[in-house]
């Protein structure tokens, strides 16, 4: 289907619209809540919760015989929550570190979940058909009721997030300080973790237990690249998660046969990759440019210092040229002397005299004085020469 077709479908195709809405809503909720998991360095917790939810789905079906989404989601939430409690319990009462506890719970619960699911699949009735879509997600199975559930419960979770915003920020930044204020931080922690569980189980039908944690981590990680404000980060992560949900669900739902989980996660990962690369300040490109600029400035200042050193040494008047060869010797392996001289000349700090001679301008002398005179004073007793003139003695 062409892009125009997809857009057309999004507007006019009822099924596609339903699917896109559900996926968008779950992406937004998971993305917003995921910020706190990421900032608290609990990214793996999302993975453990989603995997731990699997036996809950199977058991909910076994006990009720129903495949209704609210029933399965409730089962998933309970199991995910129990798994989380196990992790916290193990960390508190044993010497097993948190990452190991998460790994243990994740694999044990997921294993149990697979066993139950396999057992359920062997049942003679046809009612169980499609339960295995919970592994990798299938947005095409979303019904209007499912979407309403996702939107309704998701809005509730976001509302609570807004309501307890201050408490969640306190918990995430400085839990101990929060305790000293008299806040019951354990309660705040349980509330926030419960919201995370809710956000995760809402997405299981669409994204699947295996990849759901990416919807928690990826939008938050991408959003963090763009902003230093927590509120902006949460909003942005919600938007990115929502867009990833819509895009991924549509690619999956339009007959490609690919499960929805992977397509949504690929979309979210693309956001992460782009953000890592091009975000201002925190992006890799910006960082590389910054480092290159610093390196160049250091080289230019060093040449300026060398010229200043020569001038001081010879008691020069301003404008007395020195041989470029001398500067290259003084550079002592430092590269880019010629380029640095050109930069100095462009800035009006030095001028070329003759074919090979370079001299500081008055502006250059002033700049060198502000840069190097403090250093000279500091090191006066031992070394009367400016610090920039490495190799001069």
């Amino acid at each position, binding site marked *: 289907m062409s892009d125009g077709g997809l857009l057309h479908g999004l507007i006019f195709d009822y099924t596609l619209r339903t699917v896109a809405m559900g996926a968008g809503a779950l992406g937004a909720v998971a993305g917003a809540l995921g910020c706190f998991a990421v*900032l608290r360095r609990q990214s793996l917790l999302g993975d453990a919760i989603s995997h731990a939810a699997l036996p809950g789905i199977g058991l909910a079906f076994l006990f009720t015989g129903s495949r209704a989404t609210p029933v399965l989601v409730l089962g998933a939430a309970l199991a995910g929550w129990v798994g989380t409690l196990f992790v916290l319990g193990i960390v508190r009462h044993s010497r097993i570190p948190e990452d190991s506890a998460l790994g243990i719970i994740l694999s044990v619960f997921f294993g149990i979940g697979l066993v139950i699911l396999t057992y359920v699949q062997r049942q003679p009735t046809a009612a169980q058909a499609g339960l295995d879509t919970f592994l990798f997600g299938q947005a095409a199975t979303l019904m209007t009721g499912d979407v309403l559930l996702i939107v309704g419960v998701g809005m509730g979770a976001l509302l609570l997030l807004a309501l307890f915003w201050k408490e969640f920020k306190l918990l995430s930044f400085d839990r101990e300080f929060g305790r000293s*204020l008299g806040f019951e931080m354990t309660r705040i922690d349980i509330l926030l973790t419960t919201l995370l569980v809710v956000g995760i189980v809402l997405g299981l039908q669409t994204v699947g237990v295996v990849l759901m944690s990416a919807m928690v981590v990826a939008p938050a990680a991408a959003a*963090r690249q763009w902003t230093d404000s927590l509120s902006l980060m949460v909003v942005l992560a919600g938007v990115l998660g929502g867009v990833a949900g819509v895009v991924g669900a549509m690619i999956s739902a339009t007959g490609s046969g690919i499960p929805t989980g992977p397509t949504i996660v690929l979309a979210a990962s693309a956001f992460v990759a782009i953000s890592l690369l091009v975000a201002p300040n925190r992006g890799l490109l910006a960082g590389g440019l910054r480092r290159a600029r610093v390196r160049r400035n250091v080289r230019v200042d060093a040449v300026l210092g060398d010229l200043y050193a020569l001038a001081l040494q010879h008691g020069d008047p301003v404008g007395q040229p020195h041989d470029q060869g001398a500067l290259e010797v003084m550079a002592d392996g430092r590269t880019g002397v010629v380029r640095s001289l050109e930069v100095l000349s462009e800035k009006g700090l030095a001028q070329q005299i003759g074919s090979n001679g370079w001299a500081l301008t008055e502006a250059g002398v002033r700049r060198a004085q502000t840069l190097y005179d403090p250093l000279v004073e500091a090191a006066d007793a031992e070394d009367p020469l400016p610090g920039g003139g490495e190799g001069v003695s």
Partner: protein
Amino acid sequence: MMPPSAATGSSPSSSPAVEVNDLTVAYREKPVLWDVDLTVRSGALTAIVGPNGAGKTTLIKAILGMVPVAAGHVRILGRSLKESRGAVAYVPQRGSVDWDFPTSVEDVVLMGTYARLGWIRRPGAEERKAAGRALEKVGMDAFSDRQISQLSGGQQQRVFLARALVQEARIYLMDEPFQGVDARTERAIVDVLRELRSRGDTVVCVHHALQTVPEYFDDVALLNVRKIVSGPVSRVFTEENLRLAYGGRVPFLQGLMSGAVGAAEEGRTT
């Protein structure tokens, strides 16, 4: 600006700021604090000094009710911690939080107002004004909108101090506020401590730099799992007591102590 009686729990001057009785704290079997008695004088600057692993941080946390206590009890301004919670401000170690957290200087300082606000309510204009005043006191008012990852270590420490000041407490418990800060921050902290004292407030600092104890503090408590001694610096901050607290590591002491206890020794011999 901040009247000394602004905080709750203003008490008869007879009760000490903090009173610790028979306090024992153990993580697993090994005691971290053993049978510690400590009385912190109201309106004084007190240093808690001792070797690594002496339980200094644990003592602060136990006073704040943040670690499970095996035995003993703590009274603050003559009452239980719960009753005088609002009178106590805590400055944790700077390294205990992630300074890359996406938030601003003002936001961090505003956290000091959260206890007053209670659940759900957000800080408003009044709280922002108080945060601005606290930042001014530590010379950080120009940094209010700055992202906290852009701060130097000393600036981070001053932000933490401002966050405690905004609580308008009577007792300030600080965990190594002077650890690894620049000279300017050190002066700023000392100024704030003295201002707090002049208002009649009490400050307890876990402190590492022995040589500055006589200059900065009125009282000192030497701790090494057990309390070795506590009282006015001029009386108890002696080389002999430090030897008791620091055990065999005397060479390390001699370097530090030569000029340091000078003042205290003088006080003792004359």
